[in-house]
């Protein structure tokens, strides 16, 4: 388990508890509207496309590509300093939604926009597991 006591751990709330529980099970859950079919992330109590309250949890394939990224050279706090330089990226999932994450298990200088990536999970505590991404074993699709 990664030592992360001083990192900025998320605090799940009623809307997001299922998402974080999914992460704990190493499953990336996103929401899909049963009314209009739109996928969304982050979790909401309604569909932000059509306002339907009928949103269901579905498991993302965990595949996507890098929309943009940066290599952080000066850490946000001491808890992150050991990881410098680390990659903060915006990932577009194959299902459509975008999310922020870290890109790991690769040389930061090798990262490119458009690079296919796949989700991995880092267990930070008993309760919290953080989804991150690494270069995909093979191109998406």
């Amino acid at each position: 388990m990664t030592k992360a006591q001083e990192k900025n751990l998320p605090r799940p709330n009623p809307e997001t508890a299922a998402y974080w529980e999914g992460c704990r099970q190493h499953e990336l859950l996103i929401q899909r509207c049963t009314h209009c079919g739109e996928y969304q992330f982050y979790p909401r109590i309604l569909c932000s496309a059509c306002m339907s309250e009928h949103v269901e949890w579905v498991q993302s394939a965990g595949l996507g590509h890098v929309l943009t990224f940066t290599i952080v050279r000066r850490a946000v706090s001491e808890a992150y300093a050991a990881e410098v330089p680390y990659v903060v990226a915006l990932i577009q999932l194959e299902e459509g939604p975008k999310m922020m994450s870290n890109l790991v298990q690769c040389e930061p200088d090798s990262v490119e926009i458009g690079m296919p990536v796949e989700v991995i999970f880092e267990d930070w505590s008993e309760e919290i597991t953080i989804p991150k991404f690494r270069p995909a074993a093979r191109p998406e699709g």
Partner: protein
Amino acid sequence: MDSLRGKVAIVGAADTEVGKVPQLGATALCVDAARRALEDAGITKDQVDGLVTCNSMAEPYMYHAEAIAEYLQIFPRYCISVGAGGGTTFSILHHAASAITTGVCDTVLISMADSLRTGLSREQAMSLQSSTGHPQFEIPYGPTVPAYYALIARAHMEAYGTTPEQLAAVAVSGRKYAALNSNAQMRDLISIEDVLSSRLIADPLHLLDCSLVSDGGAAVILTSADRATDFPHHSVYILGAGEGHGHEHISQAQSLTSSAAVDSGRRAFEMAGLSPKDIDVAELYDCFTPVVLIELEDLGFCKKGEAGAFVEAGGTALEGPLPVNTHGGLLSHCHPGNPGSMFALTEAVRQLRRQAGARQVKNAEVALVHGQGGIMSSHTTLILGRERNG
């Protein structure tokens, strides 16, 4: 809503000392800015019946504007402190102007200050750094504020071939003006090479692509244009105001390379009945160099993807087609956080009063000021004129 065009004037404007100002705390800076603006307008505090402030990070109050009113012993009928950030500074000016035109109040003092350079405890500084972003879906990944803007810079480079040299040119341009401004925090000229050889903070942003951390404050006084005839300095009129709000978190942005500045600019130009070619001087929010490029494009001064070449070719210089950030901007003049946009406003007033000395834009008649808050989230554009009818 009725158009504000020509109905409200800025009759007072002043800055405090900026940079390192350890002798004044954040509350005192706010009060000092207010005092200077009242003096500039030649009015007494009893003539103020509206007060707007932004909260301070160094010396926060639960009800900040009320705390400043109490300190000054004024008793306004319109009193509000705003969460601020770059864009909301101007959006509250938009609201205050509306309050004047609807008769809620007559004369509004807007005063904003903070002391981020010398006034923060270590704990405050750390929590400030870690508090930007979504607490569950961004902050755990360790992004810094420069990192958020680096995401935008990288996307712009990828889409349009914008180069690190072109980003650097924004910082170089601002510094040239700061060298002409004795109040600016950083006045030594810099080169493109200086920017590129400064420490990488978050690729592709170097230290000199990032704005300053400062103490300082500024204030303006607004009243109706009808009352603006008898003040010590030439009044400056609001010709247009427009807002655009795109998102809060950059990971939810509709686009990484354009912003709601498209909407705020269009709305402000429509109200003013003007277009980008009518603007003599622009003061644009420049917390990081790529922001200026996106604003130049979104506000219609450059085609999408062409702002880098425009700045590189001297387009924003004093002798160029669109002087930008003539005080030095957040990159070189000062950046005390939430009040940062106020200095763009007081500079625009100085330019339109023709009081800007060595950095005066010749015959400046119409100025545009633009603020954005969050991470390209919330945008307000104001168009100001030396004449009431633009």
